[in-house]
């Protein structure tokens, strides 16, 4: 099938039907699902934003110094926008595919593999948006208490960008979901891909590297550009110098990763059937 047709399947009702199925499951247990994104920022902000900040002092951002607490808060939101869809598309999608056989049932209907993959991407991305919003709400509480600078008015723009990046990270994760032989092998995409990506991302700590390799990795890493753009939006109310790279790298990753994850999922589903 033509690549453009595959990509345009995102607008097909069948992709939305898969998204709708996952959303209905979420509605059954949304209260428990909301607990981690509500509690984690409290723990991390207390540990990093308050505890570590006393040792770190100021951190450079767009040519000025900001306190570490204000610097790390947008990073925490960016990390959530990355980690939620990435792990949702790794673990939850794998469980639906391999253990629950949910995909087998869906593929016996009018839904095709291309819609199934889009549905999973859309769902994982929207979960990322949802969790990013929850983290933002919690952090705005710290801002209201005067513990960090945080422009809540920028949240809609942050969420829009989180959606695009989340779709891209979900599509990227589905590549591994389609190829790992067993759930234990998820350690490879988690520790060899996810963890290094978050290291070179400016989410929790700044990197002042003289290494051209690290610089190149950061330049290619959508998460790095996402974190910096979140920072510009939430601290300065501006799109900032990384906005174009954040949108461009996320979009490129989404297109390439979707096509790859579609092809690999198709191979896997047909082979395992």
């Amino acid at each position: 099938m033509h690549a453009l047709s595959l990509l345009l399947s995102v607008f097909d009702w069948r992709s939305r039907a898969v998204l709708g199925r996952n959303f209905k499951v979420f509605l059954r247990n949304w209260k428990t699902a909301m607990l981690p994104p509500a509690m984690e920022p409290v723990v991390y902000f207390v540990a990093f934003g308050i505890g570590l900040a006393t040792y770190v002092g100021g951190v450079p951002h767009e040519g000025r110094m900001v306190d570490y607490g204000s610097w790390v808060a947008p990073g925490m939101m960016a990390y959530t926008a990355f980690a939620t869809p990435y792990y949702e598309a790794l673990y939850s999608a794998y469980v639906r595919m391999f253990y629950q056989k949910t995909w087998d049932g869906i593929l016996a209907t009018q839904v095709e593999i291309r819609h199934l993959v889009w549905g999973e991407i859309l769902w994982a991305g929207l979960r990322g948006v949802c969790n990013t919003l929850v983290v933002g709400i919690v952090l705005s509480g710290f801002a209201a208490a005067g513990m960090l600078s945080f422009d809540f008015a920028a949240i809609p723009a942050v969420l829009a960008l989180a959606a695009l990046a989340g779709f891209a990270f979900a599509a990227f994760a589905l590549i591994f979901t389609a190829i790992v032989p067993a759930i234990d092998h998820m350690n490879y995409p988690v520790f060899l891909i996810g963890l290094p990506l978050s290291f070179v991302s400016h989410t929790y700590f700044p990197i002042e590297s003289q290494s051209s390799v690290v610089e190149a990795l950061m330049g290619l890493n959508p998460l790095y550009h996402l974190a910096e753009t979140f920072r510009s939006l939430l601290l300065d109310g501006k799109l900032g110098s990384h906005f174009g790279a954040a949108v461009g790298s996320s979009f490129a990753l989404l297109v390439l990763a979707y096509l790859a994850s579609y092809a690999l999922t198709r191979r896997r589903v047909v082979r395992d059937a």
Partner: protein
Amino acid sequence: MDAPLLVAEGLVKRFGEKRAVDGLGLRCERGSVLGLLGPNGAGKTTTLRMLYGFLEPDEGSIRLLGREFREHREALKREIGVCTQDDSLDYDFSVVQNLEVYASYFRPKVPDLGARIDELLELFGLREYRDASPSTLSGGYKRRLILARSIVHRPKLLFLDEPTTGLDPSARVALWRIVDRLRSEGLGIILTTHYMDEAERLADRLVVLSRGRTIAEGGTKEVIARFLGGNVLVVPGTAAARDAIDRELREAHGLRPHQILDDLHVPVTPELFAELAARHPDAGLSLRRPTLDDLFLRLDEEGGL
């Protein structure tokens, strides 16, 4: 006369060098059950998957309701129901939610879905489990739910892939009754099964596959008669002359008796039976009508014909 629901011609599917399906053709009429039979590796499941659109044939055509499947895929998949062999129920939902969510995978939407679901819960005896999790159902009721789900959108053609595998006898009979009723309502059904009694009981016509090809097609009796004739000799395992008869059948007549427990079973002519019975009056030889089990055993033993 109505046009056939489904006509497949010259289907070929290759997996590497192997031709899993090799020029196969079949047709299914409204209100009838077509049984696909054959030993493991004969190409039944691959055929079924091509027919319901899971696999693309490398060659050949599939016409459903008079329209080319390849060209009208989305619309024609609306007319198909698939009851998979594996348990693919959605355990995140209750029984009734399984039906609702499954219906959401079809367009045009199922008209009056609530009434349709009530009708299916009644027909399949699932009303009292309406809000239960599928995980609490017995194997027989899970199969009922999978089957109910596969027709929630009122398809015209239903694929049943080994629908009663693993069920106890009463659950199988209950499912047979439902299949009978669906057929009487005009649904075309294509069935694969390993249970020969099930094929004999349910199928109006059989297609016997071997190595990806059709080797026999027709009514049950017609197919059996073609391969096995009208009689099967049974040599009891307790007969003193059992081994001598076995040797004679193989060496003098080129037959290959199947051993079931200690008894030998082999299709023979009435003349041969009379001859053997006369020479071994104490052996307790008897004749019975051949069944699909005999055909299946023969195909399996010979690795196809």
